[in-house]
């Protein structure tokens, strides 16, 4: 089985041991405070970088993993960020004429682009810390305990359970296509459609089989778990510390 989706890193760090609800809340506070930092507050961005870095170190997340995350985030963010400095004016830093086009690099856009880049990367890292230190099943139970609709968390649980299986199925289909494929855009598109079709039929039939197997084992629509969630002092302390830190960095960055 390929495990490209399972982002949980086994460990026993301070963060691994915290209650999933507490981690979720703390991470949410952090990301909200970070995203609401005004454009160009480099002081606040610096402090937030240190905070996220501290979390990464505490959670024992290897550098290679962070770099891989960066590779996922950057292709979406970089092109947009590269255009921004040319779209917003401000003090002109650099100018070229290409045919009828005036390309002006302004400082407003440059500051905006830098801020957006930092926010996107830091928030992705913070989220990365959360999923690296929390098993998906625990995270789901946390979200459930926080009041998310049961239908959604149950369906999500099933989806996550079978992502790996259906992904394997998709890889087999793709490998089969790749050894037979001889080019042509339209043929390529059509064959992807047919692959999606047979993937759909296989998934549907698998769902029927899974449901039958679950019925045999007494499934009645409710999800049961052996160990229950418990909030301890350390969890409360973490949420409070994170709130104080994130809010004060956010405010300090604004006034300093």
């Amino acid at each position: 089985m390929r495990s490209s989706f399972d982002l949980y890193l086994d460990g026993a760090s301070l963060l691994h041991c915290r209650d999933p609800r507490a981690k979720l809340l703390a991470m949410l506070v952090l990301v909200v405070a970070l995203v609401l930092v005004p454009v160009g507050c480099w002081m606040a961005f610096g402090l937030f970088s240190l905070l996220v870095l501290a979390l990464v170190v505490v959670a024992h997340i290897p550098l290679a993993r962070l770099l891989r995350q960066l590779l996922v985030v950057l292709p979406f963010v970089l092109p947009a960020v590269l255009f921004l400095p040319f779209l917003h004016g401000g003090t002109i830093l650099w100018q070229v004429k290409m045919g009828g086009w005036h390309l002006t690099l302004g400082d407003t856009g440059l500051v905006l682009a830098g801020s957006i880049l930092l926010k996107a990367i830091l928030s992705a890292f913070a989220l990365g810390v959360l999923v690296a230190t929390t098993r998906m099943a625990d995270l789901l139970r946390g979200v459930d305990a926080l009041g998310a609709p049961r239908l959604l968390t149950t369906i999500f649980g099933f989806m996550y359970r079978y992502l790996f299986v259906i992904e394997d199925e998709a890889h087999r289909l793709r490998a089969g296509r790749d050894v037979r494929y001889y080019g042509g855009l339209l043929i390529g598109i059509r064959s992807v459609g047919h692959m999606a079709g047979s993937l759909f039929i296989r998934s549907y039939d698998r769902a029927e089989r899974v449901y039958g197997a679950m019925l045999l084992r007494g499934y009645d629509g409710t999800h049961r778990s052996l160990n229950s969630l418990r909030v301890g002092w350390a969890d409360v302390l973490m949420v409070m510390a994170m709130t104080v830190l994130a809010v004060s960095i956010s405010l300090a960055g604004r006034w300093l």
Partner: protein
Amino acid sequence: MHIPDGFLSGATMATTAVASAAGLGVAVKMVSRRIGERHVPLMGMMGAFIFAAQMLNFPVVGGASGHLIGAALAAILLGPWASIIIMSLVLIAQCLIFQDGGLLALGANIFNMSIIAGLGAYLIYRLLTKFLGEDRRLVAGFVAAWFSVVIASVAAALELAISGTVPLDAVLPAMVGWHTLIGIGEGLITIAMLGLVRAVRKDLLQMGRA
């Protein structure tokens, strides 16, 4: 089209989050009225299917490749409300697993690619099958799939412009122009898939009506 964190203003994030939560809430209500515990594994599996189908990419030109998004497909196969739930969960999974799309931008991403795209595709599909007749179902599927991609890109462009990140006259033509092309691929994949399922397992196409 997954918007990362940092691109949207606080007001835009809050508004789209509230809109998405409301839409998802309605979808949960509508779906739980009709489905029993029997459909829970099926919905989960369909989410996994959409997730995996997005990984079936095809080469376009050079090193670039395209892939399916799936909102129209889900809406046509499973009905609008189930498709909203499934696409939203797929987007949440992509945010958690790949950090593809920001945590706080999730409201906007769900609004664009799940609610607007799903409802839009379903409306267009039903209207067209009514006007053109059931025989031209594939034409309706193509237009619905194309439309779902384009309208999602319009919504994303508007959100980025309202947030003051990019001027509207720059982002709207760029996003919509690009997704007009992507939408053609989406439409072709969608009808190839619907055609295959109809030829092989016609019974599965009735789910959206149930």
